[in-house]
């Protein structure tokens, strides 16, 4: 992870320029008036900014993380690496649009953070299907533990109950528990919250309000109160969502795997493969007939 971080540094060097330049969705695509000549995909990519909407810049730590992810997923030329087994072709990182923080210290357990977070997931399109979601904590640079230090931490995430009489949401809230270890040189902590988010995204909910309680158990053998107070300055978490974009423009690894499989088979095996494909088709036809 350290090496990846270093490599990402070369990508990060240009970050300053992000601040100064106007964003391209405010400009003609090529500086001329010929955007009609560009293929639809590029138009989709470029014309996504609503006029009058404020320009928002991403958090630099979040950007660094995504650059690291990019390096892990794609070659230097930008081609998706073929040795990946997962099926997602889209990863989105959202930073909370609103947050309310209540840091406090428990006498026994050492409660570190309690936060109310609001994530707006409007960018997720109807054709993007959620496969995995992760809460991503970044630690402050100044944090340095001794190599022996370990912390058992506990995270509770829940969707706060709605108190307003005009709230039509289901009264029960989701609660999610996770335990993990803090170690030396950790810069990021990733906590899988798929089970929490899946039903919300599936029900087309785009404003996610969650309450996060982050607790670390005190290690009785080490006087770690000071170190923990450093750790306490955890940044508010980002939300990472791993999606399968089913649109035609998106790259579908599964299709390519099928293609490769078919072309690496001997003629006999290929027949078998074709047979199984036809079988699938027949089954599809049968089942659609059944549905009708």
């Amino acid at each position: 992870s350290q090496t990846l971080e270093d490599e990402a540094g070369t990508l990060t060097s240009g970050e300053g320029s992000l601040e100064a330049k106007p964003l391209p969705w405010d400009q003609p695509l090529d500086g001329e008036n010929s955007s009609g000549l560009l293929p639809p995909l590029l138009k989709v990519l470029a014309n996504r900014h609503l006029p009058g909407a404020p320009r928002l810049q991403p958090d630099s730590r979040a950007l660094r993380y995504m650059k690291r992810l990019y390096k892990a997923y794609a070659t230097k030329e930008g081609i998706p690496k073929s040795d990946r087994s997962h099926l997602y072709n889209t990863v989105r990182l959202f930073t909370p649009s609103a947050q309310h923080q209540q840091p406090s210290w428990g006498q026994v357990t050492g409660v570190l953070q309690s936060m109310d977070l609001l994530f707006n997931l409007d960018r997720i399109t109807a054709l993007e299907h959620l496969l995995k979601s992760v809460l991503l904590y970044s630690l402050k640079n100044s944090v340095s533990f001794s190599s022996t230090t370990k912390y058992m931490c506990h995270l509770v995430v829940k969707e706060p109950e709605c108190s307003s009489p005009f709230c039509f949401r289901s009264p029960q809230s989701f609660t999610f528990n996770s335990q993990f270890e803090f170690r030396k040189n950790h810069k990021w902590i990733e906590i899988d919250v798929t089970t929490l988010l899946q039903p919300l995204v599936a029900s087309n909910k785009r404003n996610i309000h969650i309450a996060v309680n982050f607790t670390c158990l005190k290690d009785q053998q080490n006087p770690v109160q000071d170190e923990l107070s450093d750790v306490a300055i955890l940044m508010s978490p980002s939300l990472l969502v791993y999606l399968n974009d089913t649109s035609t423009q998106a790259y579908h690894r599964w299709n390519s795997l099928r293609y490769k499989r078919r072309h690496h088979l001997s003629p006999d095996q290929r027949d078998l493969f074709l047979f199984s494909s036809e079988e699938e088709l027949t089954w599809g036809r049968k089942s659609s007939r059944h549905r009708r």
Partner: protein
Amino acid sequence: DKGIGEPKAKSPQMPISYNLSEYFKQFLFPENECELHDFKLSFSQLKWDNWIVAPQRYNPRYCKGDCPRITGHRYGSPIHTMVQNIIYEKVDSSIPRPSCVPAKYSPLSVLTIEPDGSIAYKEYEDMIATKCTCR
């Protein structure tokens, strides 16, 4: 055969065999034939570098060159290509000769900054030409 093995001083002109081999070379290794070319560009040239964060450079590649009169299995062209060539040569020269176009592509991973400030990693199909054909 005349020129082969003879000392250079005795043959001031180019041997015939050399000319012949050059003549045949153009069939074996024709120049300017339909093939894949590199075209490296940076997103800053398109003024997209402030929303496409990675990759910084992109080589979409392109296909350029002449399509041979008889496109064999090398290009994987359909019979239609040959028919169109014959039409051009024998029947109506206003019908274009087959074109050199991409036959296969590879995807490209892109890291973008969205208008709301979120960051997206996306993989787009058919962004880099990897093979050319005549169609």
